């Protein structure tokens, strides 16, 4: 075995591949943004759902897959994002700006809530977030001006249905792009490394000088803001909320978990794959009624037990590809020993 010295190796962050991924993704997003001009509006407006599903899955994955926080209470922020649209729309902002302002407000609510939620760990954290979501719903329905328990609709809104769908489409697409960009850069930053070390071993991470609770708090807040934006899109697309029980429903958590697990937890690509699979399944099987949810739950269990890395994880393991590289690898510098490239299984 050759001795490894610092001088003969360098750490590679896949800069080239990251740039390429960025370029290709940018091209895809431009194409998607132009799609409503080329395709039937009915087709493109059905993609709105796909966009917010990917956003939700990406945000839940950031929480659970990278920071180790399994939350079943993200519906709190989905609901707040939806109701935030009403609040800021009533104050005179248009529905789309309201979505963005609401996400900042939700971030400001989620940050202090994290102090409550972080009192609990593991499974009890999951339940704590669920209780918070229930409490938020029970508080919201006490406001008559928000429709109390009946839900309500957006009061001032673009009249023309074509433009309405178009703007909502771009809003959903923009939010998705933002969610992916934030996640990608966050994970490539120092904090991304900190996060993964927290997920793998919190005590060891703390011993290495990582400020564990601050890092988790930041992720918790970002994930809440992402869920809020998705919630706003859901509300704007439906021009309102049919019932608070539906927008604050724990089934949103079930869908997020399902998408992330099927696709592959702890990868950037996984939630995208999972969301596409869920979107297609939902399209074809939702007429099965509630049996469909039973199958979803069963699939989630089977994947957890027998394919714990999900579909993308299995592909990655088999072919060693990753579209959005956030890992590190060590490569020998040319004029030294030309041994094989050591990879840290580039997460």
């Amino acid at each position, binding site marked *: 075995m050759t001795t490894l010295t610092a001088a003969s190796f360098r750490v590679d962050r896949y800069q080239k591949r990251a740039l390429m991924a960025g370029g290709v993704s940018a091209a895809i997003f431009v194409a998607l943004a132009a799609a409503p001009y080329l395709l039937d509006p009915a087709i493109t407006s059905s993609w709105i759902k796909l966009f917010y599903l990917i956003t939700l899955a990406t945000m839940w994955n950031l929480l659970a897959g990278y920071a180790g926080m399994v939350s079943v209470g993200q519906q709190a922020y989905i609901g707040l994002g939806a109701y935030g649209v009403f609040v800021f729309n009533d104050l005179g902002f248009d529905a789309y700006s309201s979505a963005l302002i609401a996400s900042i407000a939700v971030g400001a609510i989620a940050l202090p809530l994290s102090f409550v939620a972080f009192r609990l760990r593991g499974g009890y954290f999951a339940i704590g977030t669920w*209780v918070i979501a229930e*409490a938020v719903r029970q508080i919201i329905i006490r406001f008559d001006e928000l429709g109390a328990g009946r839900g309500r609709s957006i009061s001032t809104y673009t009249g023309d249905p074509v433009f309405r769908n178009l703007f909502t489409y771009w809003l959903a697409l923009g939010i998705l792009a933002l969610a992916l960009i934030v996640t990608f850069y966050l994970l490539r930053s120092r904090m991304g490394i900190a996060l993964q070390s927290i997920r793998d071993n919190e005590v060891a991470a703390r011993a290495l000088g990582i400020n564990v609770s601050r890092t988790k708090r930041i992720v918790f807040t970002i994930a809440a803001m992402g869920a809020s934006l998705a919630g706003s899109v859901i509300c704007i697309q439906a021009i309102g909320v049919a019932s608070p029980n539906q927008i604050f429903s724990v089934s949103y958590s079930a869908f997020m978990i399902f998408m992330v697990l099927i696709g592959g937890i702890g990868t950037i690509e996984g939630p995208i794959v999972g969301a596409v699979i869920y979107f297609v399944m939902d399209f074809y099987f939702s007429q099965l009624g509630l049996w469909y949810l*039973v199958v*979803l*739950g069963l699939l989630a269990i089977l994947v957890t037990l027998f394919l714990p890395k999900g579909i993308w994880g299995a592909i990655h393991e088999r072919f060693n590809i990753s579209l959005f590289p956030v890992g590190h690898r060590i490569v020998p510098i040319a004029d030294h020993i030309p041994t094989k490239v050591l990879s840290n299984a580039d997460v």
Partner: protein
Amino acid sequence: MIFLNALIQGILLGGLFAMAALGLSIAFGVLRVVNLAHGEIMTLGAYLAYLSLSALGLNVWMSLLIVVPAMGVVGYWVQRLMLQRALRLSELSPLLVTFGLAIMIPNALVEVFSNNKKPLPTGDLAVQSITIVDGITVGVLPLLTLVVAVVLIAGMQLFLARTKMGRYMRAAADDSDTLRLMGIDYRKVYAFAMAIAFGIAALAGVFFGIRQGGVTPFDGQLTVLFAFEAVIIGGLGSLWGTLAGGIVLGVAHSLAGQISPDLPLLVGNLVFLAILVFRPTGIVRSKVAA
């Protein structure tokens, strides 16, 4: 007097919450599994009772002789076939598996039994009450629930302290590898603990159904939160703490109900969150580190 009456009703309601929480407390104490499907197991128990009522013509109390052992067997095999594997994979896996169950069960129940409330009649027991003094009346059924909860907790404590299986369970909670070196298959011990947890959950589900006048498929989403709140308020890993937590929650619900009938759930949740902030270890100091 109204306040005192509400306090007493709250304590009695606490008995129900404690019973609901007991199975959860056992599963966490022995296996460190947080069962997100706990509420659904309760609901499933209540539906089994309804089935034995309608199909076999039993009364509710007789049906418990079928329901509790049957759910115990279910718990044993859920642990052996699913959770045991999940426990080896990662910390998150058991959570995800139980959440999967929590999604499957109520939706399947709707498809099989519809959304309508299925009755669990107990004859005139449901309306019987004892008047202690003027203005304070105690229902027989809530009193019975509290007594059963206390007996179950005392029995479980004795079981853990005195019997061989109880000792194995405490040993498995502390160090399953060493237990294995002693020639005990810890997987069976775990599964047995889960069987007890499921059995008690089913019992609690039947009591909850009786109190509510019947059972509906999504009851579990409500009861799972009550149960978890009681466990955490009481302090993780302490069975008597779970009783105390249930009573705190019950009193909070009952007092809030005096102010407005739509407040109990919100106040219960807020009391829980406040206790998390100010006394995160729970009100009873636990002997087991969480």
